């Protein structure tokens, strides 16, 4: 008797908890996971009735889940393609949240100076046309650096990743041979090199292989104090990636109405050329109106209060004018 009473009490207690708190489910990109989890826990502290459960299952998974309508919102590092949008049962708005950048990291024996990379050098090396550090093209861009006669080992990501997407998107823009060859994607058919799993895998291989060149996320390079080179931007300046030059990349780009825009190789003197937004995918006409409203509130809160937390975690915040545009779009398009 006492036991069954206890069971009933527990059930009631659980039920009231469930009533008081709504869980929003999101899934997608791994790259912004640290900042998103900070936002969502901070949001829960301020709004105890909303709990956000975000699973970093990868951009591809995020897009699929949101297409199928199994999550309340998704997240992706590469914008959805036109075919994906056409195939989706759920209409979504791409909401840019923060910016990420990808940097070239290297291990050249005897070279301690910062190496400058032009678009020709980067595309040439990753296409396999430049295969030695003593190549005249590299020497020309770095007149003050003495390069050894050492063959280049290219290191790329082996796992499908938004980092690869940003990097190959950049190469496709600056090199027609790259665009016509491997193209852009989360995984591509790399002409040369070896693959490492994750940023840590690529960084580990670069450390291990003399003469290697790879690409890693700026955040990872900053947090682990890995040396990386500067890249020549569209205005002809050699820019080293940091949070300011990454934010600058977004400032010079004309934003389309749906925010699906690539900002690699942007105009602007101070812009770092290998940068990208990461997006939340918000259903514009959610089936569960109450939850939809909560997602909308949460996104607007993040745009207002979250951008300030970004740089603490080495993410580049959106430029002010982009935040305003995005907020207007969320208010207007999400019902």
């Amino acid at each position, binding site marked *: 008797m006492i036991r069954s009473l206890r069971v009933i009490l527990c059930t009631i207690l659980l039920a009231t908890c469930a009533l008081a708190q709504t869980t929003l489910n999101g899934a997608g990109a791994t790259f912004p996971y640290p900042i998103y989890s900070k936002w969502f826990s901070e949001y829960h502290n301020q709004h105890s009735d909303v709990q956000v459960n975000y699973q970093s*299952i990868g951009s591809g998974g995020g897009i699929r889940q949101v297409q199928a309508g199994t999550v309340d919102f998704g997240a992706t590092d590469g914008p959805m393609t036109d075919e994906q949008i056409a195939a989706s049962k759920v209409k979504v708005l791409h909401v840019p949240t923060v910016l990420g950048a990808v940097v070239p990291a290297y291990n050249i024996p005897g070279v301690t100076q910062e190496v400058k990379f032009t678009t020709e050098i980067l595309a040439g090396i990753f296409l396999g046309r430049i295969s030695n550090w003593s190549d005249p093209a590299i020497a020309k861009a770095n007149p003050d650096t003495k390069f050894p006669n050492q063959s280049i080992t290219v290191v790329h990501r*082996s*796992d499908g990743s938004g980092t690869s997407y940003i990097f190959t998107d950049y190469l496709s823009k600056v090199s027609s041979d790259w665009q016509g060859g491997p193209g852009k994607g989360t995984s591509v058919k790399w002409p040369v090199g070896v693959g490492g799993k994750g940023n840590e895998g690529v960084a580990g291989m670069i450390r291990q292989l003399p003469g290697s060149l790879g690409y890693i996320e700026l955040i990872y390079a900053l947090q682990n104090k890995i040396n990386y080179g500067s890249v020549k931007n569209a205005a002809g300046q050699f820019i080293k990636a940091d949070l300011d030059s990454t934010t600058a990349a977004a400032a010079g780009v004309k934003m389309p109405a749906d925010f699906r825009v690539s900002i690699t190789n942007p105009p602007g003197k101070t812009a770092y050329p290998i940068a990208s937004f990461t997006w939340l995918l918000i259903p514009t006409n959610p089936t569960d109106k109450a939850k939809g409203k909560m997602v909308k509130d949460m996104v607007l809160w993040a745009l207002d209060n979250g951008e300030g937390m970004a740089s603490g975690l080495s993410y580049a915040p959106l430029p002010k004018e982009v935040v305003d545009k995005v907020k207007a779009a969320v208010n207007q398009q999400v019902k």
Partner: protein
Amino acid sequence: MSDSVDPMNSPDPVEQTHGPMTGIPALAQAVSERKTGVASSVLQRIRDTQPRSSRLPDATFRVLILLTAASVFAIVVFVVWELVDKSRLSLHQFGIGFFFGHNWDPVNGDFGAMPFIFGTLVSSFLALLLAVPLSVGVAVYVTEMCPIRLRAIISFLVELLAAIPSVIYGLWAIFVLAPLLRDYVEPFLAKTLGWTGFFSGPMYGLGMLAAGIILAIMIVPIIASITREVLTAVPQNQREAVLALGATRWEMIRMGVLRNARIGIVGGVILGLGRALGETMAVTMVIGNRPEVAKSLFAPGYTMASVIANEFSEATGDLYLSALVEIGLALFIVTLIVNALARLLVWSITGGTTGRARA
């Protein structure tokens, strides 16, 4: 022998406690069944002499056990069904050519599984090549020659190897094994065996050779501990008999022990091969993840398990996903074929008879 009781000819105590009413017909039946089969008649007698109430648990038990056995079939059928169903798009698009295609280009939607099948098979067989002599050596030493005190230590260490998570093996391989290979082993191999073509090209340290070695280290504990158990199971009088005929210690081990234990050893090798074929994490970290078929063991490769683990989470597009599931199907088929071949090997060794010492 004359004083031992033959259960078939004398009434056993169970019957006597139940009295003549149940005992005599049961005995008569048992006698009549003697020719058809000893085991079944004994079972029948037990069944007949049991009170009715104890038959229900037996029946329930039988059904339960049957269900657990059937569940294995159900799981296999379900796995195959899912793999075929989910890879339908890719099966339709590429047909049988998928398994022989060399191109893996997610951007342009062209997929072929050959480099991955090649990588899985080569890395696994390389691992076997290195691990089998090593593990059999360890097992022989531990069972035949080792001082008792050292035996416990070696056995413990071997089993410890099995308990290390594969990601730790992978990290160790990146930071310790790969530099060793690049700086010492690969230059040596290139100098001495470079003419074969298997040891040439740029030396990254990472690649097929590194994957084979790390897999070998990972399957040694499996093969070694099974082999040890099998060798221990060889009857002592076999050894004594061979020694009594004037054999040396090596001849005793070869003829008296290994010969008797060969089926069990093959069983251990098959288990090790199974692990090698499916191992993902450690291999992904060192194989170089490059989908190409290269003759040189220095060159990077790619395995089926690795490509699924690497690309599944970010795979966008139905055809891409479908192709990845079909890689899973290919892995299933390859495992099936390899296991079937291993079974054939066992049969050819034993000539159809069962061995004296089995795992």
